[in-house]
């Protein structure tokens, strides 16, 4: 009799469910996965090396490109690390703006996750529903920073500029009639804050809509309940964070436990799962969508009533106003120095972490006193999650591998850096 061997299968790097460029070498016994060996690094761009050769501010844009679905949260960790080393104060309004955009980013990320997770498991419609709402939030990004994704909006000392008073609007074209355009622009008549407030009113209904399609769907439950179970102890051991950790029942959220920015002034709950399977993580993230919406509401309320500066007045770190430069010699020099040489950060090391939508995103920064970081290490939550791939899919079927990839919320920008 011929010897029966497992066969290996290359899942990716080109694969519709590989979420980018995951190459997963699967050792399979029929449909059952015996061993999974993820090969990452196909999107490695050497961000850490690049950051070492650039002044501090020039690397903010790289942070957007790490986890390219939760852009501003990455920036937040990086600017927080610089701020901690510099020891500068961030204006309260800037902190509220940051928190608001962190939560917008969280919704953006979770919508992307929900859409792709659904698509992986075959619920194609989810993807398009989620992208409908993402579009509105992308417009918020655009209104505030000029770009839809890679914002580079957070700066050490605050945010680049205050919230705008108008929203970008749709224009009549060959494909959009006047009537449609008017309907689409209805919510965009006021300021950005009006638009966001309108969104927070609409959004809970949208989440209900997603939940009708999935939460009680028998097939969805069959595909996620009991799949990729991780016990709380293993989750801690494996370095899980964010919804992956909470899904396993560990009550841990940096926003609550080690609050940064103004999270200690806001009211929100952190959902925690019980069994640690894909379905629990799904429920946790769905609840986080609602909680984020709640936080955004509070931020909008505060921002409406509290105008003020949004970036530090310390012009060694933040550029002076353009208008001041026209008449003030010192402002001109500050501007020149800042944009040619940058600022020197005092010698030291710091680790700053935020609760990014995927988990703990940390930046470890070593400075030797120069105008460029000596060493930057980005701690990406996805990196720890995907390293547990083997453990999570062993003994499951091929279709479950896809579900597990989906539930990990993998984005290769941050894993490969």
């Amino acid at each position, binding site marked *: 009799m011929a010897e029966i061997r497992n066969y290996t299968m290359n899942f990716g790097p080109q694969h519709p469910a590989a979420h980018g460029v995951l190459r997963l070498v699967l050792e399979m016994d029929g449909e059952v996965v015996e061993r999974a060996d993820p090969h990452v690094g196909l999107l490695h761009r050497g961000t850490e090396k690049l950051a070492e050769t650039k*002044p501090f501010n020039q690397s903010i844009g790289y942070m957007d490109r790490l986890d390219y679905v939760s852009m501003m949260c990455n920036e937040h960790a990086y600017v927080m690390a610089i701020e901690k080393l510099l*020891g500068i104060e961030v204006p309260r309004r800037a902190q509220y703006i940051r928190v608001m955009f962190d939560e917008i980013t969280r919704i953006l990320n979770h919508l992307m996750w929900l859409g792709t997770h659904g698509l992986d498991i075959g619920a194609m419609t989810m993807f398009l529903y989620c992208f409908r709402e993402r579009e509105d939030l992308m417009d918020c990004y655009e209104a505030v920073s000029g770009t839809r994704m890679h914002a580079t909006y957070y700066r050490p000392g605050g945010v680049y500029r205050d919230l705008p008073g108008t929203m970008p609007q749709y224009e009549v074209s060959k494909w959009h009639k006047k009537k449609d355009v008017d309907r689409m622009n209805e919510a965009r008549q006021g300021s950005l804050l009006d638009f966001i407030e309108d969104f927070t009113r609409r959004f809970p209904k949208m989440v209900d809509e997603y939940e009708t399609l999935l939460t009680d769907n028998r097939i969805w439950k069959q595909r996620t309940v009991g799949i990729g179970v991780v016990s709380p102890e*293993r989750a801690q051991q494996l370095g899980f964070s964010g919804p992956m950790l909470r899904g396993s029942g560990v009550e841990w959220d940096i926003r609550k436990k080690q609050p940064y920015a103004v999270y200690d002034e806001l009211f929100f709950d952190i959902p925690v799962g019980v069994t640690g399977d894909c379905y629990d993580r799904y429920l946790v993230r769905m609840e986080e969508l609602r909680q984020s919406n709640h936080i955004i509401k509070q931020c909008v309320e505060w921002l409406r009533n509290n105008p003020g500066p949004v970036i530090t007045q310390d012009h060694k770190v933040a550029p002076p106003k353009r208008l001041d430069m026209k008449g003030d010699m010192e402002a001109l020099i500050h501007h020149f120095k800042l944009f040619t*040489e940058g600022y020197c950060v005092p010698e030291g090391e710091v680790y700053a972490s935020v609760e990014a939508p995927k988990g703990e995103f940390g930046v470890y920064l070593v400075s*030797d006193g120069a*105008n460029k970081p000596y060493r930057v*290490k980005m701690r990406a939550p996805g990196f720890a999650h995907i*390293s547990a791939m083997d453990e999570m899919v062993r003994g499951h079927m091929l279709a479950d591998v896809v579900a597990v990839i989906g539930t990990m919320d993998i984005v290769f920008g941050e894993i490969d850096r």
Partner: protein
Amino acid sequence: MSKKAVSALCEKLVARFPDSQAVHSAQDQITLEVPAEQLIETCTALRDEKDFAFEQLVDVCGVDYSDYGNVDWTTERATGTGFSRGRDVVEEKTTAWEKPRFAVVYHLLSHSKNQRLRVRTFADSEFPKVDSVIDIWSSANWFEREAFDMFGIMFEGHPDLRRILTDYGFIGHPLRKDFPLSGHVEMRYDPDKKRVVYQPVSIAPRINTPRVIRHDNRYGGESLPEVKEEQQGS
């Protein structure tokens, strides 16, 4: 962590690990410097003992200190004759680094005690080698592979120390300071051989913004320029 909690943890660490050096930084973060040979012992204690209870290893990363304090431009001591400094790169050392070249930095987190700790251990430049903590925290697996890939630090006891982020067949350790930013080789399609070939890199290295160290009086204290210059002289 509050200031009080930080100093309390600091005291506990000093008392428990007399051979190590606990540094309490201005940012309310604690660094515990551990001699390489005591790493496993210390880490096991940090995970298991009730006072510490660091259940999670958040991050492992390598640092290469060989270039520490080096600048491209003369800054403080530059005179009016320093016009040509933009043309010729002058390497200058401002801070002396006396410790070994490589360091491995572990970031620990305790969910139950809600505290963080940074553990650092050093490895020399000839053959950097550190014991693997994979038996203490499973998450060390890939982080150590990454540190190996990027710095060439060997982790003894790691079951599967392969390259992780760089290409299959990559040569060198890219985050070492002596590795050029544009690398050593580049890849292109060779129409004659009908395949992709590697060739020495054709981009000349270039510095857009020179690296400078300026001492800002606002941050005061020990890092004033005079003090630094004295250090250099000695």
